[in-house]
């Protein structure tokens, strides 16, 4: 029994299903990894990374993009893309009804959110998977929105950043989902041919069709600490080879060791690191930023460097 159970007033019982991960809604949240009870505002200030054990908690697509992009001038794009039930798929429930339920609980139309905005002054397009929507699975709507975002980046010559979290291709859209792998890979290849940067950020978890397409095709592949990514799920592999998997299998550290990703980046350093990378790929100078960027928001002063014509932040006084 944890201490929180002891201090709960008698008569307030916590149901079995919520016992492991949650505390009463409100100001406190329990870390799923180390069980530390955390003060929510502290946690949020730390980008939902446990200050005690550094566990990167799963965060929603919208929060992801809101904390990643500059606060000013970001806007959601391609909101008209909606899922289509071409097969009229039905198991115990109709796919249509499952979609409606997912839309209701998440408030999203499907599992990908796209925004355009700036990262430390650099115009970029960013997309993020909403894992709470059908496990972030990729069907038509996800593939289409990703493709449109990439096409926009391509047309404007500005970088694309993708935060993926996905169980893979969406079964209920069957081969249409599979073909989204080919579609998204094709448009990424066009970006490569045009030298428009694409950074893929792998967040926990990424499997199957998303892993075998857009998530591993970045000019730079980045992963958050301890994220799981692989083609086949651990259960499938264990069933196939009939042995236990080694510790840390398919985790970020494993991916780095085996050459699948370029680096592991802590969530609180994501903005800085990606901005640095993109600035270099784009031959730009990046303004130095205050340590606590959420508090000090600079007035961007448009400047034109020798090489490019996009507005940059002015260097801070030393």
């Amino acid at each position, binding site marked *: 029994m944890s201490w929180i159970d002891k201090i709960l007033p008698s008569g307030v019982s916590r149901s079995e299903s919520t016992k492991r991960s949650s505390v009463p809604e409100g100001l406190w949240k329990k870390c799923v990894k180390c069980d530390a009870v955390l003060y929510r505002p502290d946690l949020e200030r730390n980008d939902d990374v446990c200050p005690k054990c550094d566990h990167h908690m799963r965060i929603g697509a919208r929060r992801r993009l809101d904390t990643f992009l500059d606060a000013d001038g970001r806007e959601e794009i391609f909101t008209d893309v909606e899922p*289509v039930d*071409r*097969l009229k*798929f*039905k*198991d*115990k429930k109709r796919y249509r009804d499952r979609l409606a339920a997912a839309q209701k609980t998440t408030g999203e139309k499907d599992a990908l959110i796209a925004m355009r905005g700036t990262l430390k002054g650099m115009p970029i397009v960013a997309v993020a998977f909403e894992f709470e929507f059908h496990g972030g699975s990729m*069907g*038509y709507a996800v*593939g*289409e929105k990703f*493709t449109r975002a990439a096409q926009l980046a391509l047309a404007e010559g500005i970088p694309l950043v993708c935060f993926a979290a996905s169980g893979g*291709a969406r*079964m209920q*859209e*069957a*081969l*249409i*989902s*599979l*073909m*989204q*792998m*080919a*579609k998204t*890979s*094709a*448009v*990424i*290849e*066009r970006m*490569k*041919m045009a030298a428009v940067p694409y950074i893929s950020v792998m967040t926990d978890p990424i499997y*199957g*069709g998303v*892993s*075998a*397409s*857009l*998530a*591993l*095709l970045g000019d730079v592949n980045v992963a958050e600490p301890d994220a799981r*990514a*692989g*083609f*086949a799920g651990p259960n*499938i*592999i264990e069933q*196939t*080879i009939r042995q236990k*998997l*080694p510790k840390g*299998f*398919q985790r970020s550290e494993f991916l780095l060791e*085996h*050459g*699948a990703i370029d680096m592991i980046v802590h969530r609180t350093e994501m903005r800085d690191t990606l901005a640095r990378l993109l600035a270099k790929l784009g031959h730009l100078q990046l303004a130095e930023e205050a340590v606590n960027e959420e508090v000090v928001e600079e007035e961007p002063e448009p400047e034109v460097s020798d090489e490019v014509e996009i507005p940059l932040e002015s260097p801070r006084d030393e």
Partner: protein
Amino acid sequence: MNPNYLDFEQPIAELEVKIEELQHVGSDNELNISEEIETLKQKSTKLTEKIYSNLSSWDIVKVARHPLRPYSMDYIPRIFTEFDELHGDRHFGDDNAIVGGIARLNGEPVMVIGQEKGRAVKDKVMRNFGMPKPEGYRKALRLMEMAERFKLPVITLIDTPGAYPGIDSEERGISESIAQNLAVMSRLKTPVICIVIGEGSSGGALGIGVGDHLAMLQYSTYFVISPEGCANIIWKDSANAPDAAEAMGVTSSVLQDLGIVDATIPEPLGGAHRDVDLMSERIKAHLTEQLDVLRQLALEELLDQRYQRLLSYGN
């Protein structure tokens, strides 16, 4: 139960046994029973027609996985001449689950790449049951890029239960190897024709499956996840695999309606394994026809058409 026939084919198997017995009697006793045999043969044909005119999606999954179903190495010598197999990905090893090489189709040089499941037990093990590892996809990529340099059309034969789900596969980047193929095939400067000859399972199939023309044999299947896998996840019971097969639409007729598959190549009565030569002839005729069409396009047109088609998936 006759292992050379599927469960729904057992009535045909019984008839065939009778025919064989009579043929034995005929040759031993020199009795004239040819009329009887002829009648039975006609009956067998009619029965096969009847059964095959009404196959469920799940039945077709079984035909596609039939133990006698022709594999890439059955078709290649019948369709092409001078097949010179090329080996290795130049980085790690050679993967026998994917075969590739330069051959001639009607005298013209082409690059052929196919997944191969292997027939006898030893063969199956050597081929890893047709489940490619990263080196297989990377070998295929190497051969495709070579085909681009030497202006050889690429022909791929798809037949796999999926990319290999194993530790070594993951260590060497199975996801990346497939993703890379998807990306490169989308812009390969040579015609690419893909044919699903048996089982097209998920990313493992798509890894050699992006091109200008996608055809399926009549009783082949193509799915994003095996019906058993889908049933396991959604229905929580793999016994619902027939329902999953139906719901996902794994056959060429459904996939052609969705605009994903361009053509269906009809199979001999009772499936490709009943007449491999005839099936090979039909595949060859189809390849010849489609290659003629694609060769008439200017390269730019070809690539634009392929890209637009990729972008249109699901619209």
